[in-house]
């Protein structure tokens, strides 16, 4: 590195240096304290089991897809297939190598998913755009088929399902709602930190360069093919771990159909609504997508009582949902995260402007 700076012409040497100091993220720290210390005491089973755990897992899955689509610019509709790999691989490790502690099994499951993602990412060197999307659909359908077809993957259970083996960490049973919540929260926190490191590093920059213009990226010396495959692998690692958590921390029992194409679309919606190319956006998108239907059905139940066919509420919800997606694409292509940032900026100058 230093040999490079020796070649610099004079003006370079005398240029003033202005490095931005790193700020401590107080907001994030406070949020983490509340999430780790406050929520387990305050939230009941309903909030933990039905809302917070799936919200966290979906955020993680969104993060995984966002690395691939929002950062590296490769659209995928096979996310759920890679989630399935993570779930079934983790299950296989827990079942067949009982000495493995849970975190190691999760990591190993994620690693298997990463390997599979890498393989399905190979065509990205020749195939682009919608055509590449078809590759990911192939992955989706093929993986779903594999996990129903070969009984080895689900230990020959007649129902084709995998059930969470006893969830334990350092001898503590964590199969209760709080235990599963804390497990999920820890994994998600850790992986979010890693994702922030990645997107802020050279790797993330290279991904974004490829997203914005892959020809130019190659011209300045970025190995485009390698980085695309790497994006598939890293994204699948995240999705794989999300899949394992979805199966074991959330559902409890899962099968290949828990990871069908609709799940892939759901994750895609999370990143569209939350914001592509943003880490925080995944959480906002996931919150939106998991809370909106619950809100609508609760509101429908509470406001209209039994007077309206619940099926119609559901149809209405579908329409609202579709309309929201289009509205976001039209009005705020960068998603809710951008919208909230705009709101914050306006609030910051509040007394002056309002």
């Amino acid at each position, binding site marked *: 590195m230093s040999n490079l700076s020796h070649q610099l012409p004079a003006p370079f040497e005398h240029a003033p240096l202005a490095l931005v100091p790193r700020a401590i993220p107080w907001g994030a720290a406070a949020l983490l304290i509340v999430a780790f210390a406050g929520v387990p005491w305050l939230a009941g089973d309903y909030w933990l089991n039905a809302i917070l755990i799936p919200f966290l897992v979906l955020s993680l899955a969104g993060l995984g897809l966002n690395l691939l689509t929002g950062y590296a610019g490769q659209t995928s509709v096979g996310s759920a297939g890679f989630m399935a790999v993570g779930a079934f691989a983790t299950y296989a490790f827990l079942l067949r190598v009982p000495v493995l502690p849970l975190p190691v099994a999760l990591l190993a499951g994620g690693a298997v998913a990463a390997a599979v993602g890498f393989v399905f990412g190979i065509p990205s060197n020749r195939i682009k755009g919608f055509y590449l999307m078809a590759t990911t659909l192939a992955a989706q359908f093929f993986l*779903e088929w594999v996990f129903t077809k070969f009984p080895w993957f689900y230990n020959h259970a007649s129902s084709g399902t995998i059930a969470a083996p006893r969830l334990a960490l350092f001898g503590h049973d964590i199969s209760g709602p709080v235990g599963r919540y804390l497990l999920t929260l820890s994994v998600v926190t850790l992986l979010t930190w890693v994702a922030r490191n990645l997107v802020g590093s050279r790797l993330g920059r290279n991904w974004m360069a490829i997203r914005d213009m892959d020809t130019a990226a190659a011209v300045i010396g970025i190995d485009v093919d390698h980085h695309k495959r790497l994006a598939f692998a890293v994204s699948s690692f995240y999705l794989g771990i999300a899949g394992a958590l979805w199966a074991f921390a959330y559902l409890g029992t899962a099968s290949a159909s828990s990871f069908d194409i609709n799940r892939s679309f759901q994750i895609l919606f999370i990143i569209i609504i939350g914001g592509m190319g943003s880490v925080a956006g995944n959480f906002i998108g996931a919150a939106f997508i998991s809370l909106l239907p619950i809100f609508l059905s609760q509101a429908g139940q509470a406001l209209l009582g039994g007077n309206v066919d619940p099926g119609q509420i559901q149809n209405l919800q579908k329409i609202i949902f579709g309309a929201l997606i289009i509205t976001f694409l039209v009005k705020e292509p960068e998603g809710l995260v951008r919208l909230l940032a705009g709101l914050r900026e306006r609030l910051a100058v509040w007394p002056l402007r309002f």
Partner: protein
Amino acid sequence: MNFFLETLFGGLLAGTMYSLVAIGFVLIYKASGVFNFAQGAMLLFAALTCVSLQEAGLPFAAAVAASVVVMGLLALAIERAVLRPLVARSQITLFMATLGLSFIIEGLAQGLMGAEVRALDLGIDDVPVFVGDVMLSQFDLFAAATAAVLVLVLALLFNKTRVGVSLRAVADDTRAALSIGINLNRIWQIVWAVAGVVGLVAGLLWGARQGVQFSLSLVVLKALPVLIIGGFTSIGGAIVGGLIVGAAENLAEVYVGPLVGGGITSWFAYFLALAFLYVRPAGLFGERAIERV
């Protein structure tokens, strides 16, 4: 050998059913550069409208005519509410918008017309026909003939009418077309309406086969590999792609399926499409754009 031929021909005919769905895609992609995921939902909406009207007492022909009008109105609405505000946005954005659109149309279709399964009888006897020893399906023959007529009509529409000529101009070079005064919005409306009518035809044929119900919208997933093999921009490609997928899928299920336990049709077409892509990254008939830098 007979069995092989029968599988091959049966597969080819079944493939035309895929082509029918794919044609709607191609029309829209050519004219507006939109990869329309909502084509399946449009198919469902069209068929459901037609059947509901028939149930309400309209004769079949009138119901079809009314459905055509409804699809035209739907196209107008889509152009206004989705395409116009998103003009000049990236293709991926437009694709995602059609995902949202498919939710709206599905919600509307089921909300307005119910979720029950409806039987649809087109009055075609679905009994086997024998050509020598080779058995063919009368219904499939009818579907293939319909596809042929449809392609003919579309060809006439695009080659002999003013609308068709402007459409081709738009597909070739949008900017040049605009500069000679072609109204892009109008073209989009027309093309989406035509795609809606193609969806109606496909929806009726598929609906006659499986009943008119929600899962009609799933045939879109079957049409994707067809598009990839044929290329997004060629109607001929959609036909050939459909034939290839139909034949390959049937042959594979019969000859390869037993080796791996069968049930491979869900992904086989996609792998086939992938293999094609690897050789020709823009489909058999698609043209690869030269990158200008």
